[in-house]
């Protein structure tokens, strides 16, 4: 898989996150994942179809998800992964992946996305479309969100 495939996602994060109240968005380590992604506790899966097919899994700890939801809710205290936090995190990945799809289109590939699916639990792993996938760490106001991108 071409490492250039991550650019539309990084651009989407950089564009969307500041609109939701986040100050700094920095790209961290890029690596190639093999076999299984270990979940950090909260994983959101969004599928891609059309000219680019695959899945992106946003992976973060529950603590991070709660902090992100709180900032998205304009600083409202969020103490647990309740219905509002679940909805906020799902919307976030929907917006970022939707914007990434727009970016893919600018580069010449039409992409359609599925609704986000949130998976929570302790000690679980996932295979994101294929055994080899790209992993990019993004630091959002020093909160770590890992994007696992498996494209066919």
């Amino acid at each position, binding site marked *: 898989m071409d490492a250039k495939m991550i650019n539309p996602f990084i651009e989407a994060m950089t564009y969307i996150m500041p609109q939701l109240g986040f100050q700094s968005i920095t790209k961290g380590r890029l690596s190639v994942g093999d076999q299984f992604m270990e979940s950090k506790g909260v994983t959101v*899966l969004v599928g891609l*179809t059309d000219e680019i*097919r695959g899945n992106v899994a946003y992976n973060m700890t529950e603590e991070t998800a709660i902090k992100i939801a709180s900032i998205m809710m304009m600083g409202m205290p969020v103490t647990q992964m309740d219905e*509002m936090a*679940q909805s906020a995190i799902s919307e976030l990945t929907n917006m970022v992946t939707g914007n990434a799809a727009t970016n893919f289109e600018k580069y010449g590939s039409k992409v359609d996305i599925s609704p986000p*699916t949130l998976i929570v639990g302790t000690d679980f792993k996932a*295979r994101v479309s294929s055994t080899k996938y790209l992993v990019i760490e993004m630091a959002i106001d020093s909160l770590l969100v890992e994007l696992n991108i498996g494209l066919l």
Partner: protein
Amino acid sequence: MDKVRILVVDDSPFSQKMIEKALLNSNYEVCGFAGTGNEGIEKYRACKPDVVTMDLTLPDMDGLACCREILVIDPHAKIVVLSAMKDDVIINSGTAIGVRGFLQKPIKAGKLLTTLNVVVNEDKQAEDYQQELLQYFIRAFKTNLVDMVGLESETTVTANTGMKFMCHGLAIIIGITGTRQGRIILDLSSTLAAEVSAKILDVPTAAEDDILNSIAEFANIIAGNGVSEINNLFKGTEFEIRITPPSVFIGKSLVIINPKMSSSTVHAQTEIGELYMNVGFVGGE
């Protein structure tokens, strides 16, 4: 038919009048007007409207902050922002909070009604899509249990409440895109997955990787067969749905959550154990 009750939060008496006028002779009735954010929150509690229109510039608070307070009271509140300003930042930050629709002033009656209808009917629509399309996936599920695994099954369907699905060990998730959007989960215990896989591959015991690959492909074929049958029904129209490649989740205490989705779980009882398929759709076109 009962009228849909709407709360109008706007500090401009002119805008309030225009909204009221736009809703004349429609299926909507205004159950309250609020000129400030605090009044809006109070009236939301008191009149429990079906839908709210919200101005962004209120004298006592930001309109999005008012939306947030209402959504804390009722996470399922349906709010449409109706403001002079409408840009990406407003849409994205509003969507992040849970706002369902955005319209720009001046108010156009037709557009207001269309947006309100979409927002109000979204949940009902999700349920209708699901009810309408579920049968095709059940058929594909039962047929492939016979054709690929050699198992007859008795199926029962339960409506999924709370948008949560509890996994039994191994879950394959496949997204649905296009004219209808949703997702399919095939779920079973890891012990049963090993047995099903051995039957699919016709071997005494299957290796871990073969189990994952064969169960993922089994799910992919069920979803693909269901989707093809549905697309065939709509042949010659613009209707088309597609499926994403399958992803596999493995864990003992997994909960799968799809906010805004209406879903049903199909329980397939076979002689070697129970398999589950959850099919869900979201509203909207």
